[in-house]
């Protein structure tokens, strides 16, 4: 039978099937963080169940952590307590923790791939919806709830019904200034935020084949924003080259053996999908969102659509925008470059490349938050820190930061923030904050201009 990439990885991890019910799926790697794990550890303890495979669990502290003075105790008592609990739980149950101060600490979806923990053909879960990021390696990776975290703790397995499969093809050549973030924002704007519910997506076509691993992670990261459980891209030479030599990647002969297996992980010609979409790379332009879900996106020189719908109007009201309006040139006071969508070294290179020799606008607070300690070191080594600081950007320490504003990095009420994160929900970046999602390039250009801007205004003007 012809199989898709998803089928191949899924089927090789099925332990057993329940009659008329779900399957038991084996999980290779389980990532955990401080916010969604404490109740799962508590559940184990209440029921007196040991952690089944502690070696397959990796922990980090990311959601809650301050991005300033990480060597000092966390000021906020509740956050400190959560991070402390994680530390104690990991010690008690023999789980490896890359906590604050550790050279590998970082946002869970940034640090695991760069350490080679994420590998093609694996099944991976984390109590975090953006676990879909790891699909960039041809991995089945998805977010789970805390009850499921406890299930994986107890059995290294989950009970699941096999999702349906969809394929998203994007072929052609991307225009100048169009980044992976624009590609996924475009796809979500086209398909809507619940188009993927019940599905696992595969991204295919030369746009993804030509993309770096960082770019593929940005795309897969946002699969959840169209409702899909996860998204994946077939592993290829780009993948193998990225994994090779990473701290926890297989080495030598074992690596070669793995590569031989990884090469088999692609969708067979003629394998069936339940749903398939195709887009033209040439149609994609830099994107911004104008509303309160990631599907409410338009090309940067486009206009907010004119829909008559209560939810739509409520959303515009929250954002303070009008139907038919264009966002280009809107004054912006906050810019955030970070989050598991866009906080890898490539994202900061793109931003720094544009920013170099320029100054941020006086009205703008521009925050740069690397995804991990490793990325922070790269920023330092490549001299990007200097570029950012000379331009008036503030460089912080790694964590989720203003992506969800659980720490002090909050956007004030009513203010707009052009953000490279993945969610523009009401209050996501702070109570009453208004988020506009965009690529690191648009974010950098906006910071310099003090208003929503694109570095390629002429190209955009030509298209109008």
């Amino acid at each position, binding site marked *: 039978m012809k199989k898709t990439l998803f089928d191949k990885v899924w089927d090789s991890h099925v332990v057993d099937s329940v009659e008329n019910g779900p399957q038991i799926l084996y999980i290779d790697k389980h990532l955990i963080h401080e916010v969604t794990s404490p109740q799962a550890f*508590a559940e184990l303890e209440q*029921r007196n169940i040991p952690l089944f495979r502690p070696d397959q669990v990796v922990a980090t502290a990311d959601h809650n952590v301050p991005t300033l003075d990480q060597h000092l105790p966390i000021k906020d008592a509740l956050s400190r307590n959560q991070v402390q609990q994680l530390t104690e739980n990991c010690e008690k149950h023999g789980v490896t923790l890359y906590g604050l101060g550790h050279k590998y600490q970082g946002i869970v979806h940034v640090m695991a791939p760069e350490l080679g923990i994420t590998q093609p053909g694996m099944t991976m879960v984390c*109590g975090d919806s953006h676990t879909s990021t790891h699909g960039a390696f041809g991995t089945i990776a998805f*977010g789970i709830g805390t009850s499921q975290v406890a299930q994986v703790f107890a059995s290294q397995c989950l009970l699941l019904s096999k999702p349906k499969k969809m394929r998203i093809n994007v072929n052609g050549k991307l225009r100048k200034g169009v980044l992976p973030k624009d590609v996924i924002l475009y796809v979500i704007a086209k398909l809507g935020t619940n188009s993927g519910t019940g599905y696992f997506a595969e991204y295919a076509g030369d746009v993804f084949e030509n993309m770096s691993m960082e770019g593929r992670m940005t795309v897969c990261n946002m699969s959840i924003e169209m409702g899909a459980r996860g998204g994946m891209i077939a592993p290829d030479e780009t993948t193998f080259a990225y994994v090779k030599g990473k701290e926890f990647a297989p080495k030598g002969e074992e690596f070669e053996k793995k590569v031989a297996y990884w090469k088999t992980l692609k969708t067979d010609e003629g394998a069936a999908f339940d749903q398939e979409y195709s887009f033209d790379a040439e149609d994609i332009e830099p994107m911004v969102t104008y509303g309160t879900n990631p599907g409410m996106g338009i090309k940067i020189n486009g206009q907010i659509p004119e829909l008559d719908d209560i939810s739509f109007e409520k959303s515009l009201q929250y954002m303070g925008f009008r139907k038919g309006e264009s966002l280009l040139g809107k004054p912006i006071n906050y810019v955030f470059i970070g989050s598991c969508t866009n906080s890898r070294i490539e994202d900061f290179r793109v931003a720094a490349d544009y920013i170099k020799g320029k100054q941020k606008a006086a009205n703008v607070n521009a925050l740069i938050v690397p995804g991990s300690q490793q990325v922070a070191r790269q920023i330092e080594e490549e001299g990007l820190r200097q570029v950012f600081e000379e331009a008036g950007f503030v460089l912080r320490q790694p964590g989720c930061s203003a992506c969800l504003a659980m720490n002090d990095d909050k956007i004030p009420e009513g203010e707009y923030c052009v953000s490279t994160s993945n969610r523009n929900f009401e209050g996501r970046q702070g109570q009453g904050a208004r988020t506009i999602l965009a690529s690191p390039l648009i974010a950098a250009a906006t910071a310099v201009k003090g208003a929503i801007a694109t570095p390629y205004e002429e190209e955009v003007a030509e298209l109008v």
Partner: protein
Amino acid sequence: MEKFRTHTSKAIPLPIENIDTDQIIPARFLKATNKAGFGENLFRDWRYNKDGSLNSSFALNDPKYSGSILIAGNNFGCGSSREHAAWSLADYGLKVIVSSYFADIFKGNALNNGLLPVQVSPEYLKTLIDAVQSDPETQILVNLEEQFITLKGSDKKESFEIDAYKKLCLLNGYDDIDFLISKKDKIEEFEKELNTQI
């Protein structure tokens, strides 16, 4: 987990689409390390004014409405995987959420906490919302065993889907952990195969 068979209650209408988990429970309330007490901050930023007083125009605060069934707009529970969303709804006292669409992860989380997501057609959702808005005393009956929902006193029933295994769990009040642990031998066997395979 409590057993769930049938449930009859008045309902609270919340006909907003795409209610995401950040609205159900904002991130700043996720710092607790146990499951209790999240109901207090359910829909926090819609339910309360900035000064902490109740927002009287929000359905949950409208004295007209009460009950343990929430009727919400399309695509309920999208966004983050935080189970805190399900805990906060359950802690508030809700037993059933009705919508024309549920996000995957939320649905699973709800079921794991004895909270029943009932997916109905958009037309029937409108019927329910209209009925409750025009008469808040309307009683709604949900029958899990026979998989239908109906306005009490009406002879029109709307059937809903639920995974057969999950249904069994809810009817009997048991959960996945018990089941998975009972399969440990199989799992260990599988691990051995997996190691030799690749």
